């Protein structure tokens, strides 16, 4: 993803993205749980900063947005639960329950200090 971004950006072009990732410094056991409970895309063992540097980006800035992540995740759970019947009619009861369960598991992982969400901004470096 980041290598594709770098290739397609002009020199000096910028990328900005949000990413959900395991909290740095977790024990191997807690890290495995972070990978298990996080979104499908939580896969790499490297930090966003490391991945950006390896892909050839410079001037990397990272902002922690975990508190907002928890607030929004809780809001999805609550408001969807309030409309359970209407949403189950649209997407089916099983699919509704699957999504609610997935969000609750992620939310618990955030509260347990396993997952974070960050905003990363970086500039495409010159050709190497």
């Amino acid at each position, binding site marked *: 993803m980041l290598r594709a*971004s770098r290739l397609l*950006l002009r020199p000096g072009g*910028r990328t900005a993205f949000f990413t959900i990732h395991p909290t740095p410094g977790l024990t191997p056991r807690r890290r495995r749980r972070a990978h298990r409970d996080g979104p499908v895309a939580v896969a790499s063992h490297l930090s966003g900063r490391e991945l950006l540097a390896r892909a050839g980006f410079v001037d990397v800035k990272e902002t922690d947005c975990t508190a*907002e992540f928890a607030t929004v995740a809780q809001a999805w759970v609550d408001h969807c639960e309030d409309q359970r019947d209407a949403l189950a009619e*649209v997407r089916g009861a099983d699919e509704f329950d699957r999504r609610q369960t997935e969000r609750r598991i992620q939310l618990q992982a955030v509260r347990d200090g396993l997952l974070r969400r960050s905003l990363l901004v970086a500039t495409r470096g010159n050709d190497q």
Partner: protein
Amino acid sequence: MVTGEERDTRQRFRDHYGEDRTEVVLQIERTVIGGDWGANGYTTIAQANLLGTALGLEPGVRLLDLGAGRGWPGLYLSVRSGCDVVLSDVPFEGLHLALARAADEAANGQVAAVASSARALPFRAGTFDAVVHTDVLC
């Protein structure tokens, strides 16, 4: 090579984007995210605006949104800033909805869509001024 897990994920997203956007669904998105651009993740309108500011989006800037789904946030950022945007994702269903919304917003002249994975995008090196994505890569 596409793994079985990737295939399952792609099918889930296809099914997701194919769902009816009922008034209840739109109202929940407005309440949680602050808008109704087809978001189903964690990026709020305020956070999308942060992305736009960080990327210096304005008319003439060429933006690429990777994993755009129904167009969130790339379509919104294009409408808000006047920049040109290419929305890319594997499921066609979400992009189809994004292009319909672009037409509704009278922004179809500045919005294009490509059904492709990030690794196979049909553009020359250096085509874009800015790249955005939200919770696609972790």
